[in-house]
């Protein structure tokens, strides 16, 4: 039996403890230890983005990051985005703009889109090209990306009009 390491971190705002093998990936931990299956193992090599999560306000591929490295950090997964009162703005935009077909890549895509918009907050509004560049690490085989960019562009527009963080 290989060793396990105790880690303590914030998971979707909740102080969390886990015991993980040191070579376990963050994605495996989320899926196997916490039943958070929104993030997907679709390539395991950082080439598709389906496992994207936020850690300390940066997105990463959870399939590449070691779970032990979550220790002391703050993580948000797709499951932490919606509130009791409903979908987050970015999630709702993806629904309303028809970005979601099979949806398998969408938890990762939405996390990356949210990050993209938040990173850019207060700066010159993202263009469609900027949005597409920001999503380059997320592969979708259904949508052809147009409706994904539509959704993110709508959030950007809304944010610009209200002058508030909408995502």
């Amino acid at each position, binding site marked *: 039996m290989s*060793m396990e390491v105790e880690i303590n971190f914030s998971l979707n705002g909740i102080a969390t403890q886990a015991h993980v093998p040191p070579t376990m990936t963050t994605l495996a931990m989320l899926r196997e230890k916490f039943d958070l299956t929104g993030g997907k193992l679709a390539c395991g090599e*950082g080439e598709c983005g389906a496992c994207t999560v936020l850690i300390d306000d940066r997105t990463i*591929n959870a399939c*590449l*990051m070691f779970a*032990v*490295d979550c220790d002391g950090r703050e993580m948000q997964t797709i499951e932490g985005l919606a509130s009791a009162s409903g979908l987050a703005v970015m999630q709702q935009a993806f629904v309303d703009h028809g970005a979601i077909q099979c949806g398998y890549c969408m938890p990762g895509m939405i996390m*990356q889109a949210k990050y993209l918009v938040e990173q850019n907050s207060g700066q010159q509004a993202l263009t469609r090209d900027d949005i597409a560049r920001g999503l380059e*690490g997320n592969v979708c085989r259904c949508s052809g990306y147009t409706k994904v960019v539509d959704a993110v562009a709508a959030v950007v527009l809304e944010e610009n009009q209200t002058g508030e963080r909408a995502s």
Partner: protein
Amino acid sequence: MNIESYNAPDSIAEAAQLLQGGNATVVAGGTDLTPQTESGVRQFAATLVNIQRIDEMRGIGVMNGRIRIGGLTTVTDILESKLLADEAPVLVDAADRFASSQIRNASSLAGNLCNASPAGDMCIPLLVLDAEVELACWDGESISTRKVSLERFFTGPGKSVMVAGELMTAIEFPRCANRFVAAFLKSGPRPALEISTVSMGLSCSLTDGVISNVRVAIGAVAPTPLRAKRTEAALEGKVLNEATIQLAVETAGEEVSPIDDVRASAWYRKHLTGVYIRRLLNHVNGS
């Protein structure tokens, strides 16, 4: 391999001690290590040393008149650095063409260099910036460091001069002289999420139409990221005109030794080498 110990030191000294003896795997962003261990290309050693908590290995600053970047600095940090945008835009350009946002957020600069891929995108701008890497180890009582020119760092695909027990703590390069020009190109058609078919960097000074202090680095055309010395020599001190550019194209084409693989043939890599050296020199001429 069963992991026997896991450590997350918060200082270089502590990490260096843990790495002593060499039977340890250094863990940082994981972007290269995870796919390599998953596919079996690489095995974990019995000791894992997670260096992500070593704050003294992060950051971008000026030290003794040189730019110094901590080994754990991420590619995103480089992309967002105001200092580098002013002082070394070629490095920022390369960061912008590096993988994807998620990978840039996780990948450490030292990790990209230690991986020693012939196509490593950060190697190319750092070669033309004449960077040195700082390697630290524990000598029994204290940290011992040595500096190695990046040009001499790579020894083969996945191989470098680093010895067991060493840690790459920082990357340094001189601040730019006046009239210094540097630029980076990478093959497409995707903007970034590509293993480069060819990447190329060039730096030089241009005074009264004469090109000098030329450095040319080319990725994915040789067993290591290549400093194209013959091409540099062919350019050095010349008036930058079409004849000079043509000579550079021919010399670079002879200097590279690319292979055929699933991404491209040797022919295409040679062809792109010529296209890119011409583009970079035209860019220099225009700037």
